[in-house]
C-alpha cells in the first residue's frame, strides 16, 4: 500500500477528483492548506501599498492505493492538475504500513 499526497491548485480539485474516481479510487481526504515552493508568494495590493503574501492557498489530496495502482493514480493527477505554469504543485508518495476500517475491523488492502 502506498499513500499519495498531492498538493494542487484549488480550482483543479474537481477535475482530479473525477479522474481518480474513474480509476476506481473510492475515497480521499482533502484539506485546504497554505504554503509556498518555487512560486514563492504573491503580491496583494491594499490602498496602493504592496504586501508580499508568502503562503498561497492550495488543496492537499490524500489517497491510499494498492501498490499496483500508484502509477495510474499519479498519471491521472498529473494530467488533470497540470496548467504548465509555475505553482502547479507536487506529489509525494510514501509506503504505508497498515489500513484499518473502523466499522468492520478489516485490515490491509481490503480496508482501503
Amino acid at each position, binding site marked *: 500500500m502506498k499513500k499519495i499526497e498531492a498538493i494542487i491548485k484549488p480550482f483543479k480539485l474537481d477535475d482530479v477528483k473525477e479522474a481518480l474516481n474513474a480509476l476506481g479510487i473510492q475515497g480521499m481526504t482533502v484539506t485546504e492548506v497554505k504554503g509556498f515552493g518555487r512560486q514563492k508568494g504573491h503580491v496583494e*495590493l*491594499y*490602498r*496602493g*501599498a*504592496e*504586501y508580499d503574501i508568502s503562503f498561497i492557498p492550495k488543496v492537499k489530496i490524500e489517497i491510499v492505493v494498492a501498490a499496483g495502482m500508484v502509477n495510474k493514480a499519479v498519471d491521472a493527477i498529473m494530467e488533470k492538475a497540470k496548467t504548465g505554469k509555475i505553482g502547479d504543485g507536487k506529489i509525494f508518495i510514501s509506503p504505508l504500513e497498515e489500513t484499518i476500517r473502523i466499522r468492520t475491523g478489516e485490515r490491509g488492502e481490503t480496508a482501503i
Partner: protein
Amino acid sequence: MKKYISIIMLMAAVFCMGLPAFAGEQSAAPMAATAAPAPAPKLDSGDTAWMIVATAMVMLMSIPGLALFYGGLAKTKDALNTMAMTFVTFCIVSLLWVIYGYPLSFGTDIGGFIGSTEKLFLKGIGSNSLFGTIPEYIFIVYQLTFAAITVSLASGAYIERMKFSAWVLFSIFWMTLVYIPVAHWVWGNGFLAKLGALDFAGGTVVHVNAGIAALVGALVLGKRHAKAIMPGNLTLVITGAGLLWFGWFGFNAGSALAANGLAGAAFINTNTAAAVAALAWMFVEWKHSGKPTVLGLASGAVGGLVAITPAAGFVNVTGAIVIGIAAGIVPFYAVAKLKPMLGYDDTLDAFGIHGIGGMLGAILTGVFADPAINPAGTGLFYGNPGQLWTQFIAVGVTVLYSGIMTFIIFMVLKLVVGIRADADEEAAGLDESQHGERAYNN
C-alpha cells in the same frame, strides 16, 4: 521625540498659512446654513418627517456603516475590537450629549467659544420646543449622531494596538474637550461662524477634526508590530462603504434642516462627488499599481463623500465633479505615498482620507461656492476671493486646536492609564485580549 517635533512643525505650518488672513478678511459673509437659528416659530411636518429619517440615516453610518467599513479592514483577530470602538463611542456620546454636549455646543454663545449651560440635561426643552421648523428634540439627536461618528472616525488610525479602556476614556475626553468647542465655533454661532466660514455638513467640524486627531493619536501610540493592512473580510468593507454612502445622504442633505431645494442640491452633489471620486481613485490606482482594487473603489467613494461634506449645500454639480476628482486623487497619494514616506502608522488611513479629504473639501468650498445654489456662500470663482482665506482660517484653527488637544489627551491617558496593549496582547489580537471573544469560530 522626533515624532512630537513633526507634529508641532505640521501645526505651525498650517497656522502660518492661515495667519495673514486673520488681519485681512473681516467680510461679514453670512453663516453656514446649519448655523442659522431661524426664528420661524411654526413646525413644518414635511421638514420634521425628513429630519427624523435623516437622523436615523446618520446613526446608520456609525453602526453598522463605519463599524463594518473599519471592522472588515482590520485583521481577523482584531475585527470585533475595531467594531466595538465605534459601538461604544456611539453609546458614550449618546449619553453625554443629552447631559451636557448639546447645551455646550448649541447653547447661547459665550464669547464666541462655548455655549451656555442653561440647557444642561436638556432643561427647559419640551416636545413643543422648536429649532427652526423642526422639534428641538430631533435637532438634538441629529447633532448627536454627528458627534458620535466624528469621535469614531479617529479610531481607524488607532486600531490593532490601543487598549480598549484607553479608547473609552479618549471618547469621553475628546468629545468634551475637542468636538463640543469646535462644533460650537462653526455651527453654534461661535467665532468661526461669525467670521463667515462655510461648512455645510462638517468638513472641518467632523472630518478635519477627526482626521488630525487620527494623525496625532497614531503618532503618540506608535507603530503596530505587524504593520500592514491585512483585511479580515473585504466584503464587509464594501457593505460598510455602501451603508456610509446611503447614510451620507442624511448627513449632507439633512444638513439643510428642511425638506427643500437646498437639501436636493446637497443630495445630488453628495452622490456625484462620491461616484466621481471612486472612479478617480480607481483610475489613479490602476495606473499607479497596475490593478483597480475594490478597496480602492470603496476608499475613493468615502474620500469623495468626505470632501463634498462642507461643500454639499454651496456648490453646483460642476463644483461637485471637480471636488470629486480631487478627492479621488489627493487622498490616494496621501495614503500610498505620503504615509510610507513619513512613516506614521495610521492603520486605516483616517488621516489620509478624512483629514486630507476634509481639508481639500473645506478649501475647495471657498473656491466653488455658488450663490445661485445658496446665497449664504460665494466663493473665489464667483467673485469673493476672501472666502478662500476664511476657509483656510477655519481649517487652520481646527488643525491647530484638534492637534494640540488630542496630543494633551493622549499624553495624559498615557501617563495615567496607559494607551497601548502589551506586545503579546497585540500579537494574540485585541478581540481575545480585550474582550475575551473571537469574531469567527471555525
